[in-house]
C-alpha cells in the first residue's frame, strides 16, 4: 500500500470514528433528560429540563432496608444526583407514601436543597412517612397538595400535568394508596412521557377515560409491571413507543407480570427494565428521543431511539 493510500485510509477511518462519536455525544448532550434509576424494587426518577430545573419523583426504598443497613437514598439516589450535577431539586414528588417509593427520600432531603414537595397527602402512618414529613417540616420546605389538573412548567415549553389523584380521593378500591398515586404527563413538543406511579385497575381506568388524549411516547409502567396494573384499556390509550419498568431483580412479587409484558407487546411498545438494563435514561430532543440502559448484569447496555412526527 502506498503512503498516499495509507493516509487516505487513515483519514476515512478517522472521519468514521469522529462521526460516530459525535452522534454518541449528540444523543446525550442538551435536551430533556429523564432517568429511571435502578433503585431495586422501588421507584426513583430524575427529570432534568434544559432550563436547569430538576424534579425527583420518589426516592426508591425496600422493605426492611432500615434493618439491613442499606439506604437506597444514600447508596443510589444521591450518587446519581451528584453524577448528574444536581445541586438542588426544584420539585420533589412523592407519588404515594409506600416504603418502596419514599424509603430513600430522607437521605435526599437531608443532603440536597429542595424547593417544593408535591405530595398527595394520603392517609398513612408508617414510621418512614412520618419521619420524612418531619424532616420536610424541619427544613421548612413548602408542600403542595397534588391533585388532578395541576399544570407545572419546567421552562422552554416543557410542561407537566397532574392527572391523578382526583379530588376527592378514590376510596374503597383494591388498593387506595396505589390508585391515588400521583400520575403526571410530561410533554416536550410532540414527545411525552407518562409517569404512572403505582396505579392499579381503578386508577388506570380513570386515566384511560381522561378527557384529553393520554397517548405518550414513553410510559413509566405502573406498579412495577404487576398483573393488577396490566389494564388493556389503559395501555391502549397510552400506546407508548417505549415502556420502562422500574423493578428489582429476583423480586419476591414476580414483577413484571407476564400479563403486563404481553399487553405491552400487544400495543407495540419496546420494553426496558431496570433489573436488566440498569438505570434507563431517556433523552427528548423533539421530534427525536433516545433511551439507553446504564448496563446489564452481563455488561451490555442497550440504546433505543425513535422519532415522532410533529
Amino acid at each position: 500500500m502506498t503512503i498516499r493510500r495509507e493516509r487516505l485510509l487513515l483519514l476515512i477511518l478517522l472521519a468514521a470514528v469522529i462521526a460516530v462519536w459525535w452522534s454518541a455525544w449528540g444523543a446525550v448532550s442538551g435536551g430533556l433528560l429523564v432517568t429511571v434509576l435502578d433503585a431495586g424494587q422501588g421507584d426513583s426518577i430524575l427529570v432534568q429540563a434544559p432550563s436547569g430545573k430538576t424534579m425527583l419523583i420518589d426516592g426508591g426504598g425496600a422493605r426492611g432496608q432500615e434493618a439491613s443497613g442499606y439506604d437506597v437514598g444514600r447508596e443510589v439516589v444521591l450518587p446519581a444526583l451528584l453524577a448528574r450535577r444536581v445541586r438542588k431539586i426544584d420539585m420533589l414528588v412523592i407519588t404515594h407514601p409506600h416504603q418502596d417509593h419514599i424509603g430513600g427520600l430522607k437521605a435526599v432531603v437531608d443532603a440536597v436543597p429542595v424547593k417544593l414537595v408535591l405530595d398527595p397527602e394520603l392517609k398513612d402512618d408508617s414510621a418512614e412517612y412520618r419521619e420524612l414529613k418531619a424532616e420536610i417540616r424541619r427544613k421548612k420546605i413548602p408542600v403542595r397538595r397534588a391533585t388532578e389538573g395541576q399544570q407545572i412548567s419546567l421552562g422552554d415549553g416543557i410542561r407537566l400535568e397532574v392527572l391523578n389523584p382526583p379530588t376527592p380521593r378514590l376510596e374503597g378500591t383494591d388498593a387506595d394508596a396505589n390508585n391515588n398515586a400521583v400520575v403526571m404527563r410530561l410533554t416536550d413538543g410532540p414527545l411525552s412521557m407518562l409517569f404512572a406511579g403505582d396505579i392499579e385497575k381503578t386508577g388506570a381506568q380513570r386515566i384511560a377515560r381522561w378527557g384529553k388524549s393520554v397517548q405518550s411516547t414513553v410510559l413509566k409502567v405502573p406498579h412495577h409491571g404487576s398483573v393488577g396494573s396490566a389494564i388493556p384499556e389503559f395501555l391502549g390509550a397510552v400506546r407508548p413507543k417505549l415502556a420502562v419498568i422500574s423493578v428489582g431483580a429476583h423480586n419476591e412479587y414476580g414483577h413484571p407480570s407476564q400479563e403486563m409484558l404481553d399487553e405491552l407487546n400487544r400495543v407495540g411498545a419496546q420494553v426496558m427494565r431496570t433489573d436488566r438494563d440498569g438505570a434507563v435514561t431517556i433523552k427528548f430532543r423533539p421530534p427525536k428521543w433516545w433511551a439507553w440502559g446504564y448496563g446489564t448484569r452481563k455488561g451490555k447496555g442497550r440504546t433505543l431511539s425513535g422519532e415522532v412526527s410533529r
Partner: protein
Amino acid sequence: MEGILNRPLVCIALAFAGGIALVAAWGSLSLWALVGLLLLSALACAWRRNPQAVGAALLIAGALAGGAAYSLSELRPRSDVSLLPEGGQTLVGTVSGVPRYSDGVWRFALTAERHEQGAGSEPVSGVVYVRLRSDRPVARGQRWRLTGRLQEPRGERNPGGRSEAAVLSALGASAALSVGGAELAEPLGRGDLSPVSAHAFAAQRRALGLLERYVGGPYRELTAQVAASVIFGVHATPPPSEITEDFRRAGTIHLLVVSGAMVSMVFGFVFLPGALGAGWRRLLVERQMGWTLSGKGRVRRWPGLLATVLGVAVVLYYAILTEGGQAVARAAFMGVFVGLAFALRQVPAVAKEHGLNIDPYTLLGVAGLGILVMQPTALFQPGFQLSFVAALSLIYLTPKLERFLPGVPRWLRIGLAGTAAAQFATFPILAWHYGQAPLGGFGANLLAVPLAGVVLAAGMATCALGVAAPPLAFLPGWVTGISTRGMIWASSAFASIPWLSPEVTRPSWVVIVAWYAVLVGVGAWLGRQAMATEARS
C-alpha cells in the same frame, strides 16, 4: 504494530486472548472450529513442514488453549457464594478487607468458607461484601458466622456508579450479605490467614494510623484519607464520595485504586538504587523497540542480586498489602520478570551468549498471558483492559508522539506524550464500561500523576519515619499533605467544567475497532516518518 509477529510470546498471548473472546462470544461451536483448524494446520505442517505452517499451528493451539481455559473456568463445578440462592443465608468466613465503619454499619469483604443450613453445612468459596449493623468491633483476619440476606451484586447500574458494583468488583466479591443486627453475627476467633497476609494487613493498619497522625496541611483528616487511597488503594480508607466523584469525572480515579504506575514506582524505589549500586550507571537504555540493560565499568554482582530479590519481594508484598486488582497483578508480573531478567544478567554465561534486551511488548504479553491463564474471565474486566491498553499505548505511542514536541525538556515531553497516549487509548474502554468520556483527563492527569508520585514517596517516607524517628515524620507528612491537596485541587478543577466529562452512549464495537485501527495506523505512520527523517539526516 511493527515487528509484533516477530515476538512469539506476544503472538501466543494474543492468540490465547482471542480464543477466550471467541468462545465467550460464540460458545463451544468456536472451540470445535478451533480444534478443526488445529487438525488442518497440523496436517499442513506434516505435509509441507514450513515454518509458517508451524507458526500458524502454534497460534491456533494458543487460541484453543485460551478457549478451553475459558470454557473450563465457566463449566468447572463451583461452590461459589454467588451460586447460593438470594435471601436468608448463614455464612462462615474470614474478614479479608479493611472493615469500614459508618452510621452504625460495618462494611467489609468476607472470604466465605462454609455455608450453613439448618444442622448441616457445606464448604463454599468466594468473597461476599458484608454490611453488618453492629457496634461490635470487626477486624481484618477475624472469623465470623453471619446470618443475613444474600443478594446478587448490583453492577454499574446507575449514574454515579456508587452502587455496589464499584465496591464489589474491586474487592472481588460475588455477592452481598446484609446482616441486620449484632445478634446475627458471631465472632469465631482469628482466621487462618497466611503469616505474610496477616503481617501485610497489620502493617497496613499501622501505616494508615501513621498517615492520619503525620499528614500535614489543610483539611488533615480528608487529606490523609486521599493520601492513604493513593498509597494503599481506595479500600483502605475511602475518601468522601464528592472527592472520588471529582476524580472519576476528571479521569484521575486510577490514582485512587493503586495502578500499575504505583507498583512500578514502588519497584523502582527498591530496585533502582541497588541496580545502580551494582554498577549499572545507565540501567535502562531506551532503544527504538525496547530497553537494554547495559553497564559501564566494573559490575558488582551482589548489590544487583540483592536489589532484584528485594524489588520482587517488595512488589509482591505491596500487591498483597493493597489487595490490588488487575493493574497491580500486571505490574507485579512485569516487575518480577524485569527482576528475573536482571538476575539472569548476573550469570556471565547468559549475558555473554545472549546480551539482555528487555522487550516491553514481550514483557506485557507474558504478564497478560500469566493473568489470563490464572483467570480467563479477566479479559472482560475493565481493570484488565484499561491497564493493558494504557501500558501498551505508553510503550507504542509515547515515543512517536514525543516527536511533536521538539524543544520541550525530555521529562516534560515524556509526561505530555504519555498522558496523551494513555488518554487516546483508554477513551473507548471508559465510554464502553462507564458511559463517560473524561475529556479533561489529559490536563488533570498531567498535573495529578507527578503529584501522585510525590504522595507515594513522601507518604512511604512518613510511615517509615513514623516508626523509626517519629519527630522527623512531620516533614514528609507535610510534603504528602501538600501534594495530596494539589492532586485534589487538580481533579476538582477539571471535574467542575461540565463539558469536559460528558456522558456518552455505549459505542459499538465497530467504532472501537476503528478507533484502535486509527491509533495503530497513526503510530505506524509516525514511526515511518521518524525513520525517513533519520535516513535523510
